[in-house]
C-alpha cells in the first residue's frame, strides 16, 4: 500500500538521488555549465522519447522511431540544397505519414503495434538506404548554418536546443492535459473497451498518437542531422533503447493510461545523469547497453499495471 503511494513520486526522487550521488562523487558535475551541456546533448533523444510517450501512453509501442529518425537524417541532408527550410517540413511530414501508417496497420488491420512498427521501421530503413545510396552524406556547412543555424546556436546564453525542447514539451504537455484529444488519449490508455463504449473514435485517436510519435521521431532525426551536419541510414542507431528507457523510467507504464510527457522529461534526465555518471565512474562505454537493458527490465517491472493484464503473454 505504502509503495503504491510512493510510486508516482519515484521518478523525481530517483533523479534527485542520482544527481546528489554523482554530485558528491564529483563536484564538477554540479557546475551549471556542465549540467546545461549535458541537457543540450540529450535533446534529440528527448524529442524521440517525447513521441514514444504518446505510443506507450495508449498502451502500444513504437519500435520504428529509430529507423524514422535515421531516415530523416538522410531526407534532411538531401532536401536541404533544394528546399532550404522546407526540408524541415518534408522531414516532419514524412515522419507523420510513417507513424500514421503504423497506426493504420495496428488499428484497422489488427497487427500488434510492436510488429507493425517493426515492419514500418524496415520500410523506413530501406527508403533511407535507397535515398542515401548507402553512403554517409554531408551537409554544406554554409547552407546548414544559414538555414538551420538557429537550431544549434544559443539564445541568451542558453543552447538553442534547450529552447526547442522546452517549446516541444510545452506543446506536448498542452496537447496531453488541456485538449479533448489529450483526454481521449488518457481514456484509450486507461481502458480501451470503455473508451469504445463511450463513443470515442478510438482508432482515429490511436492513429493520431502513432502519427505524433513518428512526427517527433522525425524532428529528433532532423535536429541530430543538423548537429552532426550530415545524414546516414544508421546515424541514429542506439537511440531506441534509451528512448524507451526514458519513457518507462519516467513512470509511464507499458500498459499506458498514466504518466505522460512531464514524466518523460524526468525520465530523460535520469538517462542523461546515468550516462554521464558512467563517464565519471569510468564504466566502459561498451557496458552502457547492458546497464540500460537491466534498468529497462527493472523500470517495467516496477511500473506495469498488472490488473490490466489478465494473461501476461
Amino acid at each position, binding site marked *: 500500500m505504502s509503495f503504491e503511494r510512493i510510486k508516482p513520486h519515484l521518478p523525481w526522487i530517483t533523479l534527485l538521488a542520482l544527481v546528489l550521488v554523482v554530485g558528491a562523487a564529483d563536484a564538477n558535475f554540479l557546475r551549471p555549465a556542465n549540467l546545461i551541456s549535458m541537457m543540450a546533448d540529450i535533446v534529440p533523444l528527448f524529442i524521440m522519447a517525447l513521441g514514444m510517450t504518446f505510443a506507450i501512453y495508449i498502451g502500444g509501442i513504437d519500435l520504428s522511431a529509430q529507423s524514422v529518425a535515421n531516415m530523416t537524417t538522410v531526407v534532411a541532408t538531401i532536401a536541404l540544397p533544394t528546399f532550404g527550410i522546407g526540408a524541415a517540413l518534408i522531414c516532419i511530414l514524412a515522419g507523420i505519414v510513417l507513424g500514421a501508417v503504423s497506426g493504420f496497420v495496428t488499428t484497422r*488491420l489488427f497487427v500488434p503495434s510492436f510488429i507493425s512498427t517493426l515492419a514500418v521501421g524496415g520500410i523506413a530503413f530501406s527508403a533511407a538506404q*535507397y535515398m542515401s545510396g548507402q553512403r554517409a552524406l554531408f551537409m554544406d556547412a554554409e547552407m546548414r548554418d544559414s538555414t538551420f543555424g538557429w537550431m544549434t546556436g544559443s539564445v541568451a546564453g542558453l543552447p538553442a536546443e534547450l529552447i526547442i525542447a522546452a517549446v516541444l514539451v510545452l506543446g506536448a504537455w498542452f496537447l496531453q492535459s488541456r485538449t479533448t484529444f489529450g483526454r481521449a488519449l488518457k481514456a484509450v490508455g486507461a481502458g480501451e473497451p470503455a473508451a469504445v463504449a463511450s463513443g470515442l473514435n478510438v482508432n482515429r485517436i490511436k492513429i493520431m498518437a502513432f502519427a505524433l510519435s513518428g512526427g517527433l521521431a522525425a524532428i529528433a532525426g532532423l535536429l541530430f542531422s543538423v548537429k552532426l551536419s550530415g545524414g546516414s541510414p544508421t546515424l541514429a542507431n542506439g537511440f531506441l533503447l534509451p528512448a524507451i528507457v526514458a519513457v518507462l523510467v519516467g513512470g509511464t507504464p507499458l500498459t499506458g493510461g498514466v504518466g505522460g510527457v512531464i514524466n518523460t522529461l524526468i525520465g530523460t534526465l535520469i538517462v542523461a545523469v546515468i550516462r554521464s555518471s558512467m563517464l565519471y565512474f569510468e564504466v566502459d562505454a561498451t557496458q552502457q*547497453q547492458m546497464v540500460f537493458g537491466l534498468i529497462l527490465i527493472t523500470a*517495467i517491472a516496477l511500473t506495469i499495471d498488472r490488473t490490466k493484464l489478465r494473461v501476461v503473454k
Partner: protein
Amino acid sequence: MSNVLTRDVLIKWAPLIVLLVLVLFFTMMEPRFFSLRNFARIGISSAPALMVAIGVTFIIIMGSIDLSMEGTVSVCAVVFAFAFIALGGTLASWAWLAIPLALLVGGAIGFVNGLVHVLLKIPSFMASLAMGFVGTGFALLLTGGDRIRVEDDLFRSLLTERWFGFPIMCYVALLFLLIAWFIQSRTTLGRNFYAVGGGEELAHASGLNVNRVRIMGFALAGIFYAVGALLAVGRIGIAETATGSNFMFVSITSVVVGGTALWGGIGGVWNTLIGVLIVNVINNGMVVIGLPGYVQDGVLGILVIAAVVLSTDRKSVTFVK
C-alpha cells in the same frame, strides 16, 4: 461454413503456394536462379536463420513472442569462439566441448528470459527485447568490439565440405529441424506449447503448470538460437557482437510468413521451414534479377504485415495494442 473452410484451407497451403510461385517467378526472370549452385547458396543463408526461426516458433505457438535472439546469438557465438580457441582451436581436440557449452549458454539465457517474463509478469515482447539489449551489450563487453576468427578447417567444413552440392551445415539444420519436429509433435512439452497457445486459461484449468511450460519454451528457444549461432560462425568464420544482428526481423518475418499465427496455437516447425525459404528465396532472387539488396527490409516489412493480416481471424479479435 464453406466460407470458413476455404479460408482455413487457404491459410494452410498459402505459404507453400507462395514459395512455389516465387521460385517460378524468379526462374522466369532469370534462368540461372534455378540451379543447384544457387539453391546451395539459398540453403547456406537459410540454415542459421532456420535454427533461430524454429526457436522462436515454439514461443509464438504459445502466443508469446521472443525478440531476444540478436543478443542471444551474439553471446553464444562469442562464448563459443572464446572457448573453442582456449581449448585448442580445432574440433579434433577437446575444443569440441565448446559446442555443448554454447548450447548450454543459449539454454541458460533463454531460461533467464523466461524467468524475467513469467516471474516479473512483464509482457514477453518487452522482457525479451530488453534481455536482447542486455545480451548484445554483454557480447560487446566480452569482445571489447573485436572480431574473433575461428579458422579450424574441421569446423569450417560445415561450409566447405559438400554432399550432393549442399554444404554440411544444411544437413545439420535439417537434423535439428527433425529434432524440433519430434519435440513439437511427439513430446508432452510440444503438445503443451499448443495447449498454452490455444487457450491459456483452459490449459491452466486442466492442471497444466503454464508458467513452467513458458519458461521451458524460452529455454528451448535459447538452445536453438545457440545452434543458429554455431552455424552462423561456421558460415563466415568470425564471431563478433554483430553476429546476431538482423536475426530478429528475419526470423519473426519467416515464422509469420510461414503461417504460424501470432495469436498462438496454430502452425509449427514445417511452416517455419517454408517461411524461412520464402524469405531467403526473395532475398536471393532479388539479387539474382539485379535489384539492390537494400530493398530487402522494406519488402520483408510489407510481407510481415500482409502475413499477419491474412492469418488473423478478424471476427475473433476485438482490439490490439
